């Protein structure tokens, strides 16, 4: 019964449940839990167990069951949560997550800690309630459903006499005797006699009571167990007597074979012919008669959430983007036609634009998700990293409700994990060192998210020792990442961390040293259109700031013309635009040019030259200069021909059709319907960087640094 898509649903649900679980466990840890928190935790584990059973995930079901047993004791106040219990259930949450992951990847891996935890859970349960503990130790056999393939067994016919007298409660519980009789009839030949002698005169008739009884004779190839199984639901709600009339050698084996799975049967209630039916049901009949077949069309409960294939949303976002472009095209054409700006049709078009923007915002909001689940996952990372390094670290989160594009949330998981691990592993000191430095023994890692003018800012702060710049520089020099005589500013040294092949730990610890360096962190964030910066105070800790666009679909850009091509520069990397006087320029070397910007010198590059659209010369007097700065470089002035506009553009990927183009990150369609390329500023600077050292991105700024010192 477990098709793949159902499994996908299961794992998606597990993810939500595990998030809820870790949220609840977090609340228990910081003391903000209430009764409902424990209930929610219990339900999460319970739901995972319930659904996992359907997929025969034995390990998962077994562990969830033991976990659930302990949670149930907490829920019923039988067990008080102390530090030990809290530790065990928190770890159990982690192991449960691991088991789900193992089930998803079908790795068959059993988390190392599982056996020990199972022991702890059982012990806790036993200590709390000896009897319950015993129950918990009994291995919970998941009722994995193996279809019984008994094959065609020829069972000889048997004859049963069945006496059945429903009691009032049978009716109250929603049973219908006629359905029961139907079910019996399906087993063989059935003779039915109905005894109506107990029906009272009408004035004493209680429509909700039961007055009829039946005697039946069933002949069919069935065992007694099968017959009894029909009455399973109504035992205790009726007088029932089943006798086998012949002693044919019918084995009562089937019910045993099926006993593992409680299946069911129905039964009914007092006898009813057509007329009785109305009375039987009385006070609220006919409105609530019990003819099930009268069920009307479905009225769905209002769904609180809607799950949509993200691709559909992306398609919608794309189309809305084009709608906005389309509006701009029309507006421009109307202006070209000479329609006066106060014409009614222009006003209508403005409304159109307004509505299109509304739709765009609405659609973007669909993709938005709070960062909370992401942050919650980090609590585990901090815990594990703390345990592995023998440090006590607390994670403080802020702005968990901040909503970010779903893709961003997903793709931030790895970089954040790495940065948090780093913060604990490299940033926070051991408790002894902390105490010696006059700090509290417990280190703090703070993770915060906030919206900042069209961007999302995620900040990771630790109160550890701060970056050891001397060692960073020495390492970089030893590894040949910077020339031995390079003079680097503090910010430049900090940025060395992001260079490929850099690792500060003298010995690669098994924590942070997992093959993913800070360079990968940076690459990921850059690929999301964001940037990451570091600041650090020796002895007081470090701050990593990640700045990301709210969505990946649009970009704030400056539209410029370069060698009669229209291009878009991302606003995020632009510092300012400058019109320069000839006296501001100073040539350096055969091809180099510096420009003075308020007293400091910045190198000048021709954008057209770098991209191969024109030669490297530019007209100092007519060109416009855009001062850009990326994470890896000091400011550089890019010479362009004109600046035509500053606007939000919809990003259209080129990679599908053209592969990766150096210096170009994507394309967009402008208001006039023209296609413009979006410049990848980082790549442009790299392309322009002289190859005289292997410093790549840093080469430019280093050389600039030296030149600036000369100048």
């Amino acid at each position, binding site marked *: *019964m477990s098709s793949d898509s*159902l499994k996908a*649903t299961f794992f998606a*649900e597990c993810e939500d449940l595990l998030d809820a679980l870790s949220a609840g466990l977090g609340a228990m840890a910081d003391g903000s839990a209430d009764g409902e928190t424990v*209930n*929610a935790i219990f*339900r999460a584990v*319970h*739901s995972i*167990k*319930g*659904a996992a*059973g*359907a997929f*025969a995930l034995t390990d998962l079901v077994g562990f969830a069951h033991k976990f659930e047993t302990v949670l149930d004791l907490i829920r019923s106040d039988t067990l008080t949560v102390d530090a030990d219990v809290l530790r065990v259930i928190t770890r159990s949450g982690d192991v449960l997550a691991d088991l789900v992951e193992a089930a998803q990847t079908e790795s068959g891996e059993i988390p190392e800690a599982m056996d020990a935890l199972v022991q702890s859970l059982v012990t806790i349960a036993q200590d709390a309630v000896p009897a319950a503990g015993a129950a918990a130790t009994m291995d919970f056999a*998941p*009722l*994995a*459903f193996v279809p019984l393939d008994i094959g065609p067994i020829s069972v000889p016919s048997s004859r049963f006499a069945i006496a059945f007298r429903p009691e009032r*409660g049978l*009716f109250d*519980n*929603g*049973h*219908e005797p*006629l*359905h*029961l009789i*139907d*079910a019996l009839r*399906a087993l063989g030949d059935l003779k039915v006699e109905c005894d109506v002698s107990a029906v009272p005169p009408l004035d004493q008739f209680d429509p909700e009571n039961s007055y009829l009884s039946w005697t039946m004779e069933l002949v069919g190839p069935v065992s007694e167990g099968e017959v009894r199984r*029909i009455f*399973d*639901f109504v*035992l*205790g*709600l009726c007088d029932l007597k089943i006798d086998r009339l012949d002693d044919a050698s019918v084995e009562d084996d089937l019910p045993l074979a099926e006993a593992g*799975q*409680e*299946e*069911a*049967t*129905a039964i009914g209630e007092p006898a009813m012919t057509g007329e009785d039916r109305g009375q039987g*049901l009385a006070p*609220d009949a006919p*409105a*609530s008669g*019990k003819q*099930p*077949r*009268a*069920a*009307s*069309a*479905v*009225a*769905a*409960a*209002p769904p*609180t959430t809607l799950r949509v294939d993200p691709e559909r949303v992306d398609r919608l976002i794309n189309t809305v983007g084009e709608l906005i472009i389309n509006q701009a095209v029309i507006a421009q054409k109307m202006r070209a036609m000479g329609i006066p700006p106060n014409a009614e049709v222009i006003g209508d078009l403005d409304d159109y634009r307004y509505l299109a923007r509304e739709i765009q915002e609405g659609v973007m909001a669909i993709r938005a998700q709070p960062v909370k689940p992401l942050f919650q996952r980090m609590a585990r990372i901090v815990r594990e990293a703390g345990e592995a390094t023998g440090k006590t670290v607390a994670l403080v989160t802020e702005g968990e409700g901040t909503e970010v594009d779903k893709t961003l949330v997903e793709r931030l998981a790895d970089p954040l994990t790495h940065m948090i691990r780093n913060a604990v592993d490299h940033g926070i000191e051991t408790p002894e060192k902390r105490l010696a430095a006059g700090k509290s023994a417990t280190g703090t890692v703070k993770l915060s998210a906030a919206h900042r003018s069209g961007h999302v800012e995620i900040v990771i702060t630790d109160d550890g020792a701060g970056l050891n710049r001397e060692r960073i520089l020495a390492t970089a020099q030893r590894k040949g990442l910077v020339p031995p005589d390079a003079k680097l500013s503090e910010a430049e040294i900090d940025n060395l961390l992001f260079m490929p092949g850099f690792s500060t730990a003298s010995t690669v610890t098994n924590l942070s040293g997992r093959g993913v360096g800070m360079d990968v962190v940076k690459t990921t964030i850059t690929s999301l259109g964001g940037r990451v910066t570091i600041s650090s105070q020796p002895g007081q800790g470090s701050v990593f700031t990640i700045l990301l666009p709210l969505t990946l679909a649009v970009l704030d850009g400056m539209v410029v013309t370069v060698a009669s091509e229209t291009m878009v520069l991302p606003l995020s990397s632009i510092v300012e635009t400058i019109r320069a006087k000839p006296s501001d320029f100073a040539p350096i070397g055969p091809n180099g040019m510096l420009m003075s910007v308020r007293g400091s010198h910045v190198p000048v590059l021709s954008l057209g030259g770098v991209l191969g659209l024109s030669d490297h010369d530019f007209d100092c007097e007519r060109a416009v200069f855009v001062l850009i700065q990326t994470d890896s470089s000091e400011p550089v002035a890019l010479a362009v021909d004109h600046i035509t506009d500053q606007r939000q553009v919809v990003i259209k990927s080129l990679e599908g059709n053209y592969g990766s183009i150096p210096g170009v990150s994507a394309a967009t369609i402008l208001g006039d319907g023209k296609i413009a390329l979006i410049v990848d500023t980082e790549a442009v600077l790299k392309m322009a960087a002289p190859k005289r050292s292997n410093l790549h991105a840093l080469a430019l700024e280093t050389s600039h640094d030296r030149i600036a010192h000369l100048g």
Partner: protein
Amino acid sequence: MTSVLAIDDSRTMREMVSRTLSAAGFSVTTAEDGVLGVEAFRKARFAAVITDINMPNMDGFGVIDAIRKGDVNRKVPILVLTTESGAALKERARQARATGWIVKPFDDDALVDVIRRVTGTLPE
């Protein structure tokens, strides 16, 4: 078409019940907790209700109680979907005035069979 209301906070279980019963020719409405389930129950006429026990806002026993004490279709067959089995469950379900029970994980055929029996829609 015979309509069945399935109330479960687990998406997987909802989908599983819904698929199984739809394939057997039932029309299935789902609700994700007891409160929404009872609300949905009042809006349409169902031949049977399947409800989970452990749910937020209102649990399965609350659902049964609300339906049995309500004034719409209150004798509807209600099946509880549970991971427990054994005598205690049966007694508890009967006390709560459930019509029957289905133990998770369930077999598709068994689920359909139970629903057919309580709704009297056995195939010929």
